[in-house]
């Protein structure tokens, strides 16, 4: 029998805070992390709001001169990684362990190329010097010994990252693994790219109410930034050192639409397949699911399509399974979105309380689900499911289980 993979450490830099307790409090209080963008001029941008992070504090164990040398992307990932290792209690004794890294990230190079332009007045794309990719940089910075991988399946990336870390653990390639996602997408060009795609909300004068998944008046998603990394290891390993266990990564499923690079398929079968694979892998029946963290980004087409998928998967049980979209509070963290939403599920598993979908004032009849509107819901939660879908037609789902 396989040793279950469990999550024993968390490091996060998010629009709702940079520390687990603060994030949990803000999430369950239904607070919005969406603001008017102040970092650069946005006068000609279609969307001028975003889920914005506060700069992470230097983590203990990283000398100040080293921290000062890091760029913003390196600080984001370094803070998440160190805090996850510390939270798991293995920071001080990481040397003999084979610790892998799987990071979902899509915009690292775009961010680098573009910020070089702002800093030096010349786009970084013209520079022949190749940036050391973030996972290799992090491996070297922390002196880790396991394999490293950065990947992108767009907004489904972190679910892939978690699954791959679990595979590496099961294959015996690593003793434990950092996995999650990080993106700094709030740059003028990336914001413009999504804006011109007509994917973003234009409620620029109402930032905190702009992200409204499943609401009749939703008009697009709100871009966000941040990172979340988890420390994954086998249950036996966690038990041996009496480590805190946030939850078990019990199942994963993935399938592609093969329909369109951006638009969700009108045929729901691939997404249904992904969800069923995850539930089968976790050996969970649909009637055992206590909470669904929906992908729901607040786009007119995507939210309704996901509602239809949930009805197909859960059938007669759909009206009793609470569903919420935490993107209503964070905006869309892109490759880090699935990692944040896994974190939201773990908060639900720990506190036995389900985070709400804020701004859900008039539920769209096309999204007829058991919503958790505006206020958190106290409820027994043993099994949580989190969906994440992405450009390129990626559909993923994970199942997280409470560990007694």
């Amino acid at each position, binding site marked *: 029998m396989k040793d279950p993979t469990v999550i024993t450490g968390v490091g996060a830099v998010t629009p709702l805070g940079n520390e687990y307790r603060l994030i949990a409090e803000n999430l369950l209080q239904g607070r919005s992390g969406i603001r008017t963008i102040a970092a650069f001029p946005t006068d000609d941008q279609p969307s001028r709001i975003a889920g914005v992070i506060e700069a992470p504090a230097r983590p203990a164990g990283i000398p100040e001169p080293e921290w000062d040398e890091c760029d913003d992307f390196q600080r984001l990932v370094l803070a998440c990684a160190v805090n996850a290792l510390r939270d798991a209690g293995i920071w001080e004794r990481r040397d003999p362990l084979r610790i892998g890294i799987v990071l979902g990230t899509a915009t690292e190079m775009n961010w680098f190329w573009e910020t070089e332009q702002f800093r030096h007045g010349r786009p970084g794309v*013209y520079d022949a010097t190749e940036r050391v*990719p973030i996972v290799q940089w992090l491996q070297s910075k922390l002196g880790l010994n396991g394999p490293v991988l950065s990947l992108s399946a767009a907004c489904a990336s972190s679910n892939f990252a978690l699954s791959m870390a*679990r595979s590496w653990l099961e294959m015996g390639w690593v003793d434990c693994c950092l996995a999650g996602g990080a993106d700094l997408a709030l740059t003028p060009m990336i914001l*413009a790219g999504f804006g011109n795609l007509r994917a973003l909300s234009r409620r620029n004068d109402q930032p905190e109410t702009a992200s409204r998944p499943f609401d009749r008046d939703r008009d697009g998603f709100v871009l966000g930034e941040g990172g979340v990394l988890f420390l994954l290891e086998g249950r036996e390993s966690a038990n041996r050192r009496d480590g805190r266990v946030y939850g078990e990564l019990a199942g994963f499923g993935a399938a592609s639409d093969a329909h369109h690079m951006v638009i969700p398929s009108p045929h729901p079968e691939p997404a249904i397949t992904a969800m069923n694979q995850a539930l089968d892998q976790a050996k969970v029946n649909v009637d055992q699911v206590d909470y669904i963290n929906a992908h729901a980004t607040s786009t007119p087409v995507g939210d309704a399509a996901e509602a239809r998928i949930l009805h197909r998967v859960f059938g007669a049980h759909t009206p009793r399974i609470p569903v919420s979209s935490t993107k209503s509070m964070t905006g869309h963290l892109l490759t880090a979105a699935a990692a944040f939403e896994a974190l939201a599920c773990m908060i639900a598993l720990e506190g036995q309380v389900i985070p709400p979908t804020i701004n859900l004032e008039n539920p769209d009849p096309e999204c007829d689900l058991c919503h958790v509107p505006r206020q958190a819901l106290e409820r027994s939660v043993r099994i949580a499911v989190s969906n994440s879908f992405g450009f390129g037609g990626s559909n993923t789902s994970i199942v997280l289980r409470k560990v007694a």
Partner: protein
Amino acid sequence: MPASLLRHSDDLTLAALHGLQPVLPDISPVSFENWGVVVGARQFGRSAQAQASERFRQEGAWGISPHMIPHASVHAPSGTISLALGLHGPNLGVGNGPGFVTEAFLAAAALLHGTATPGILVVVTEFAPEFIPSPTQATPGDDDLLNVLALALQSEPQDNLPAMSWHLDATSTKDGFASITQVEAFLADRMDRKQLSLGAGLVLGRERTRRMAA
């Protein structure tokens, strides 16, 4: 394949798709509808970024093409291949710097282990040498060359398919990264070595029993 499908695709995406052409007949005896695809590309989106930078400088936010995000991001080649070939298994892009070859194998092995997909198409591609845009040349010219290597990987060989068996194993070493040409030479049996270190703790090794020549 309709031209409209590839109209906005990056050169590396086109190379990845082209590189798969000889692989598909080999696996055509079985349906690969549920296969997955992993694409590793070096410095993906660089040319598009160079063009976009110039447009942004001249026109501001409205100068950025809506096709930039979907077609010039790391996941674009795998998404395009999935779409073009009708693959419903998982698709994802990996790497984007040195190490992209190794990362493609690391990802493929994990997908074969952790998902229900029967096989993974692995494609790695790069400009050789790397194309560096300039203010006067944002896009590659006719003389710029690309390398591409495409493989079909399965956990277990199937009797009706030609196959060679290798094993992938992670070690605790962190030696140098293999290039596309190194891996190609190893797979084509032109190297005497029993195993090839792919760097980042990954080793590609020959099995003793070879089923058939690929």
